[in-house]
């Protein structure tokens, strides 16, 4: 197989050296085994080792290599290199402070995630083995528990850009519904109270950018709708 050369345009910013971020034009020759965008970026790093990015599992499980690829958020390790228009433009996730190159500060994102208490609350004494659910009840958690917290969704959400400190964002709300939907959880009321707020939940204007970008094909908008359903059922 002949060697392929791929053109890149990459957002570069090293706060210790650069006064301003800039776009770097660079190309790299790929090996036949390089299939995904992440392979190409790793290859690129052998050429310019100052390029910084996060990655770990390289198979869509850890959620660390989320970035803005040709204008759309996604995971580099799940993106086919041959399907991308060149030059491939890479930028850090929008809306979060840049630490360096493609690495962003996720503090705000995780703060919102933690604010919804992403763990089971059950005050009954723990059973000897496990808390059982019926298969139907367990079914409810499908499409919710698979989230890998890559932040592709929240950083593509205009409501999160404008109010990252107050709006929980699609990832956090999907996680919130994951525990609201769990029959073993006993904090339903507290969880709904926690979100019954013009900012935390109701900043969502159903723009659906989140659904469009989720690399795990999850649907935060639907989860947000179901939280609203629960609130309505509780209130009327």
């Amino acid at each position, binding site marked *: 197989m002949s060697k392929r050369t791929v053109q890149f345009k990459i957002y570069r910013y090293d706060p210790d050296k650069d006064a301003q971020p800039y776009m770097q034009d660079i190309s790299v020759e790929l090996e036949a085994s390089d299939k995904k965008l992440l392979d190409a970026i790793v290859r690129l790093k052998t050429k310019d080792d100052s390029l910084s990015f996060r990655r770990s599992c390289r198979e869509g499980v850890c959620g660390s290599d989320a970035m803005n690829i040709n204008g759309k958020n996604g995971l580099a390790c799940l993106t086919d290199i041959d399907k991308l228009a060149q030059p491939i433009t890479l930028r850090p996730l929008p809306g979060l402070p840049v630490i360096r190159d493609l690495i962003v500060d996720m503090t705000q994102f995780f703060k919102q995630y933690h604010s919804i208490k992403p763990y089971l609350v059950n005050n009954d004494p723990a059973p000897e083995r496990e808390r059982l659910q019926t298969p139907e009840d367990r079914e409810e958690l499908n499409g919710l528990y698979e989230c890998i917290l890559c932040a592709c969704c929240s950083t593509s959400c205009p*409501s999160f850009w404008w109010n990252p400190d*107050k709006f929980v964002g699609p990832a956090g709300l999907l996680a919130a519904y994951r525990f609201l939907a769990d029959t073993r959880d006993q904090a339903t009321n507290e969880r709904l*109270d926690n979100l*019954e*707020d*013009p*900012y*935390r939940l*109701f900043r969502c*204007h159903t723009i659906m950018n989140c659904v469009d970008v989720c690399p795990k094909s999850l649907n935060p908008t639907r989860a947000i709708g179901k939280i609203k359903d629960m609130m309505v059922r509780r209130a009327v």
Partner: protein
Amino acid sequence: MVNRHVVGAHYGLRDWIAQRATALFMAIYTVIFGICALTLPELSYDAWSGLFSNGLMKFATFLFFLSLFFHAWIGIRDIWMDYVKPAGLRLVLHLITIFLLVGYAGWAAQILWRL
């Protein structure tokens, strides 16, 4: 103190439902109003004011305007919430919006009951 973010005003759901309910009412009214206007015998001032001399029509139309203004209140407040960061400025904008909309509602009543 400046870094403490305060959220938890418990009116998110109420306004969200109100936004939908007012939209629904406006849609229904628009259909009914369309039918009434199209079935007028002639387009003259007399026919027009005759339509609005009906008490039920006055009532429904006034409700339409109230729905419109309440719907507008939530929508415009959303814009202030999304884009205006300083809380003081936001409060001023909220107040101006409320004053304007309440004024419009009074004006609408005056026009309707004059017809």
